């Protein structure tokens, strides 16, 4: 009963947050001075003023702001994200996003899995062999991975392995007309490495500190005192408990799976959500920008809600606090 009340409260908060997200996303874009057509025409000379006015009418910019907002939200409720203005003039935003989200999920999904595996392995190894060469190496790699900018690292990979060695393509997601997974693999290698570097670095540090903290717990000392083998103590008792806080951290990174990796996708001309977002911003395609921003905002809200639900289900203290 208490748990249900607690969850309903969290749901209400999330719904309110979602509405706020729509207001902020819409408001920020539409309060920009000048309007998209003005921005788009930029320095071009000889533009017919009547054409500008008519184009503004066609995209609804002659209507008051609140009317445009209501129309947009009603469209969202119907699953209509609007039509693209410039990136793919006249085409539904939903369709454009669909092609890009697949590419992004592949890139960020693979990168997340690799980062998790490598980051945890490196972090746990560093914790188990604390102050040994493995630990020093892991620390060095983590610092390097955190410091190296993705755009520079990506460019270096392109120079070394695409331009010079010719082992991988310098960009794109797949060859023309071939979108099968096997065809995509060579195109994913360099972007995945670029994207994974920073994640491996940060997650390895989390894993190291989490396992170190666990290894100093009484129950681990007890397990050792009982004569359990070191490997069994680590993998049977310490690692499962050390993973708990990491699950939260990784869970909160899930929205980034959808948002894409703008820098990496741009360096590698990878047609994912991040690059689409950047292109849409550059081309003043607000329906696409709004939708991606909203998607990201809502996924953050949902990820937080998911975390709250998990806490409520597994943590007795939360139940009592909620009461």
């Amino acid at each position, binding site marked *: 009963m208490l748990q249900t009340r607690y969850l309903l409260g969290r749901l209400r908060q999330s719904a309110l947050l979602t509405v706020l997200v729509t207001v902020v996303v819409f408001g920020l874009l539409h309060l920009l001075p000048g309007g998209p057509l003005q921005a788009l025409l930029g*320095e071009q000379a000889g533009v017919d*003023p009547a054409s500008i006015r008519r184009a503004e009418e066609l995209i609804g910019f002659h209507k008051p702001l609140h009317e445009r907002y209501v129309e947009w939200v009603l469209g969202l409720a119907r699953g209509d994200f609007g039509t693209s203005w410039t990136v*793919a003039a*006249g085409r539904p935003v939903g369709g454009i996003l669909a*092609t890009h989200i697949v590419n992004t999920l592949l890139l960020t999904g693979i990168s997340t899995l690799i980062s998790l595996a490598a980051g945890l392995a490196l972090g746990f190894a560093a914790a188990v062999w604390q102050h040994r060469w493995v630990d020093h190496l892991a620390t060095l790699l983590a610092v390097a991975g955190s410091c190296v900018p993705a755009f520079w690292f990506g460019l270096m990979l*392109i120079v070394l392995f695409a331009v010079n060695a010719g*082992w991988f393509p310098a960009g794109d997601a797949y060859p*023309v*007309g071939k979108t099968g997974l096997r065809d995509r693999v060579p195109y994913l290698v360099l972007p995945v490495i670029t994207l994974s570097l920073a994640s491996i670095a940060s997650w390895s540090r989390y894993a190291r500190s989490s396992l170190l903290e666990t290894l100093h717990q009484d129950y681990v000392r007890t397990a050792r005192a009982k004569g359990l083998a070191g490997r069994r103590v680590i993998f049977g008792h310490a690692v499962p408990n050390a993973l708990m806080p990491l699950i939260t951290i990784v869970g909160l990174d899930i929205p980034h799976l959808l948002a894409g990796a703008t820098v990496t996708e741009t360096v590698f001309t990878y047609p994912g959500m991040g690059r689409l977002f950047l292109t849409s911003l550059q081309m003043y395609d607000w329906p696409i920008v709004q939708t991606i921003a909203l998607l990201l905002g809502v996924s953050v809200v949902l990820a937080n809600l998911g975390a709250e639900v998990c806490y409520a289900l597994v943590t007795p203290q939360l139940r009592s606090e909620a009461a």
Partner: protein
Amino acid sequence: MASVGIGRKMESGRRARRRGVLAGGVGAAVLAACGPAGGTGSAGTGSDGSAAQAGGKRAETITVGLLGAPSSTLWGTGSGNGLSLSNALTDDFLTIPNDKGILIPRLAQQVPSLENGGAKMDGNRLTVTYKLRSGAKWQDGAPVTSKDVAYAFELQNNPDFPTIDRSLLAKVEEVRTPDDATAVFVFKAGQVDPNFAWVGNVAPKHLYSTVPVKDLPKSQFAEKPVHAGPYKLKEFTPNVQAVYEAFPGYWGGAPRTKTIVLKGVADSNAMFAQMRTGQLDVTAYGFTGMDILPDIEGAAKSGGLQVSVTPSTSTLIVALNLDKPQFKDVRVRQALLYALNRPGMMKAILHDRVKPLNSWLTPSIPYFADSPASYPYNIEKAKSLLAEAGWRPGAGGAMTKDGQPFKIAFWGRTEDKQREIFMQAAQRDWKAIGVDSEIILQPSTQVFGKQGSGVVSRRDFDAVIWQVSPFDANGGYIFWHGSQVPTPERQFREGENYFGWRNAKADALLDKALGTLNEAERKTAYTEHQKLWLEELPALPLFSHLLIHATKKGIKNYKPTNSVRYPTTWNAHEWELSE
């Protein structure tokens, strides 16, 4: 909804030029510093891996890289280079400009002119006649007729059709179709235009007229345009690429290459890398800054690439607001140009690949009048002119007049780093003659927003650095004619003479240039106008941009145009790639 589209068949490359280079010039330099492009592995092989694999064979696919994928593939319903290139593949036009910018006939049998009788003056009324080529057909098999020409005119005049510039169309009274093969454009009495041969277009009436004009961008014809060009759209992935396959029924014969791909690339560095790995066969307007040219040429020397550099219609100028007190005296404007070390700028920023410009036209425009010796870098001359204009050095050497210091609010856009470097150079040069300038960088909308939304259009600036093609603005009329100064009374909505240049003699020369169909008279008028412009200096000319094209060796018949307004795919049906 459609974005703002094109009213004529050509499209500006503004957006392509606008694109920033994410990693600056570092990437290109690093790429160039490495050795020659290695052979790419199977994954990196260009053009779907099928391009010219066997020696001497003709490749089935040519992949064209451009900054930003086509935004649309339907004529008139988008903007940018991508659409322009796409249109020249799928569509065909009555006439089209070739690599020299000269109109050649396509669906029309000839380019109408006074000499060949295609254009005639009947009293004070101009008529332009297009005779259609026999055998031309739409890609659904229907014949191209004069009704399609009349329909295209009707379409472009429809307020729901996003035509940007209707200045030429507005001069036409009606389009007559005496028979299926003849379309006659009758101009309004007393209205002539030197660009009359550009007035005609075609659109498939039997298809497009079945859809309300405002719904065309969302129609099946946006998904699969049907036109009369050498290629048909096979696949369009927004923001990624468009794939075209040859249309065997093309009136000019089956295209030589089976598939053409227009592929969007994020920036010049990525473009360069993909050229070197063989993923691209051709780049179209991909290299936006001269800073990358030495790197490309270095790579070309190593083999595998060929590079061509062509002049463009685009200029970089410092526009001055002549209504500001400090610029009213022509000697001051001249002093500011004398003070600019333009050759030094060209050398330091543009690798000495361009020369200072001394006109508002560029060498790629036939009416360009060269004045190479004008305004050489001369600090003393600049100071002397300022002194003649009453400016005296005050404290710290800063020029003052009537107790007021000489200050310039110098505007630029944040998105263009190269322009910012030019601004810094100009600021330094003007400082040397005691003129202080404050560089103000703002997003493009704040600077160039139309109809009073930017400082330029509401004329609230002293000076602004501007990349612009003044000739595109109705032959310079909208830019330089005294009647075209935007005013608050007209809500800054009409005219783009933001400089506030009002000169009766210059106006008369422009009127003459645009009001005559005699080519020699027009050239003379433009020459005199440029001379006057150079004396008066409503803007300070810096240089004219060059267009850089790189292709794989083995490309045949690729003839890049001399302007971003003209699609370089104009003769794509003749392209072939062999190794």
